[in-house]
């Protein structure tokens, strides 16, 4: 048997609906249609009345989920694309994220964001919004990069008593496969050494994990052992695991598909340089998408986002330092 990243997301929702009566799913076309990407396939039929089509009203979708959560429900929202969550950012960042701190009443909602670029996605169906949400206090931001994490972290997200922004990567939906779903997995909050190495550390997450792994394979042939840290969650960030890796390698490259200003890479570098300055044998480097909207044309898109080639080239520079 083999299961895709997308199927893992469907399976996690299936299990959550099965295990917990308080779970329901709400989003555009998630009902009998099964969602734009089929992440809720068959669920409406299997759980009548609990997988509900929403009008094109992202603000009201989130607002109502916040209210329902106060009645003991655990809503799972699907945004059709991460990009469209922009019109719900007020409910997410100002209403959901502040509720526990203001009132002491937790707000257990999960917002699924189909994120990241694909060929032909263009400026408004390709965004990686994790770093925008991460600026808001009161949110947990998950960025699974493997089939196993997509499954176990979504299940955990639904159980967590705080609002979770679940950034699943569209590029991985069909491309990524695993043999089976995990029974146990690293918990949310822990980063994973996705590849052990000794010459440099790459800190990355989501689809870029796989570009980094490819780059490391290539560099292996040149005699370099690259260690790769998969962040898994970008808020919180598992700084200890990163520092331990940098302590081993002395070199740091951060890779993210998001826009360059601020964001995960800058946050990781700031933590490492502030807490592990002495561990670094070379200036920490980062690689992001370019500072323009995300291009439609595949040739432009491939240049806009970091690729394994670009990562390898950055690593060579870093290793030569």
């Amino acid at each position, binding site marked *: 048997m083999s299961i895709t990243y997308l199927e893992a997301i469907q399976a996690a929702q299936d299990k959550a609906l099965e295990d917990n009566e308080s779970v329901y799913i709400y989003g555009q076309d998630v009902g009998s249609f099964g969602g734009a990407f089929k992440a809720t396939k068959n669920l409406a039929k299997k759980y009548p009345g609990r997988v509900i089509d929403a*009008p094109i009203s992202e603000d009201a979708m989130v607002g109502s989920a916040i209210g329902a959560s106060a009645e003991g429900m655990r809503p799972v929202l699907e945004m059709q694309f991460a990009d469209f969550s922009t019109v719900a950012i007020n409910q997410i960042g100002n209403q959901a994220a502040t509720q526990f701190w203001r009132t002491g009443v937790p707000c257990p909602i999960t917002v699924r964001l189909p994120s990241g670029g694909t060929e032909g996605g263009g400026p408004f169906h390709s965004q990686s919004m994790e770093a925008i949400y991460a600026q808001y206090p009161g949110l947990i931001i998950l960025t699974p990069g493997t089939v196993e994490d997509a499954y176990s972290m979504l299940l955990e997200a639904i159980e967590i008593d705080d609002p979770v922004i679940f950034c699943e990567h569209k590029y991985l939906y069909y491309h990524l496969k695993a043999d089976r779903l995990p029974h146990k997995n690293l918990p949310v909050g822990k980063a994973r050494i996705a590849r052990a190495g000794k010459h440099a550390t790459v800190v990355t997450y989501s689809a870029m994990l796989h570009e980094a792994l490819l780059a490391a394979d290539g560099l292996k042939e040149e005699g370099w052992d690259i260690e790769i840290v998969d962040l898994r969650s970008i808020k919180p960030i598992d700084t200890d695991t990163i520092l331990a890796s940098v302590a081993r390698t002395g070199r740091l490259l951060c890779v993210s598909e998001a826009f360059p200003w601020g964001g995960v890479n800058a946050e990781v570098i700031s933590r490492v340089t502030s807490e592990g300055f002495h561990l670094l044998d070379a200036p920490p480097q980062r690689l992001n998408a370019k500072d323009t909207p995300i291009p439609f044309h595949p040739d432009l898109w491939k240049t806009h986002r970091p690729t394994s080639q670009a990562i390898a080239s950055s690593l060579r520079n870093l290793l030569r330092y």
Partner: protein
Amino acid sequence: MAEAEIKVAKKESSDPASQYRAAFRYMLLARTFEERTASLYRAGKIVGGVFMGKGQEAFSVGLALALDKEREDIYGPLIRDQAGRLAFGEQLIDAARTYLGSVKGPMRARDGNVHRGNIHDGMIPMISHLGSHISVVSGRLIGKRFNNKSNFVGGVCIGDGGTSTGAFHEALNQAAVEKLPLVVAVADNQFAYSTSTERQFACKDLVDRAIGYGFEGYSIDGTNLDVCLETFDKAVNRAREGHGPQLVIGHLLRLCGHGEHDDASYISDERKKQAFGGDCLQIAQQHLLDSGISNKIEISQWTSDIVKQVEDATSAAQREPGPDPFQETWQALSTSHLSEGNATT
């Protein structure tokens, strides 16, 4: 205590006269309390904005009195709903604590003034972004439906200006699609801050929006307590009985500045003489006297009771401690082990 007595009057009696008497006393309590907050604000004892419901108490109390906490009704007040909050069951001391920064208030001094609420008690603690609390109230109703409850209603307040927000629209449409027992009370007080309604919308009456959402609609004189009580009673009952969402527009005039920092010099005296320009509290008092439902002596007794209540609450709150920054956890998450604390600073 007079406050408790008002509540008894509300619950125990459904005869119009007692209801009117109770409503009037909530209005008077709200007015008196707000005037006190205004003077505390001017004295520098309250920070942040002080927004008064002066002129809207009848409309505000109308919705809240029609709601029933025992049936798990939900209430989503806004900045001018002191009267409604009290009628819904807010303790005066909690209002005073919130304004005066007591750590014992429901928001523990983390949030202030009109932003207070009590989620478990069914009173939504508004955030400032107008319109965004409506879908939260709807969500409460959706949640109750999932939990196989019935007979509940949600009542939510907004101003004329707030109807221009995208959040308002999405929430009303969603409530109609879900056929929720939601009553939306729009206090058309002719102004949003300094902006009068001609610059806010172009329909004749905001009730004209009801049909476009599939709501039942009511357009009423918001200065007339009788009309308010009756209309909200009807709207809440219709919602409770499954007739779907209800839109009630109350026509009235904001009889104060937007906040206490604003002298409202842009509101002309003529405006106050026009239709719906009157003071609902005075009108209600006159009605009490004219109809013989109450009398001068009783009203003056109520007034002095209320003044004392307000005095007691504000002075008690003022004696309470403020928050201690060193006792704060400074964690925005309930899941402590995922909280980063000061990882980033």
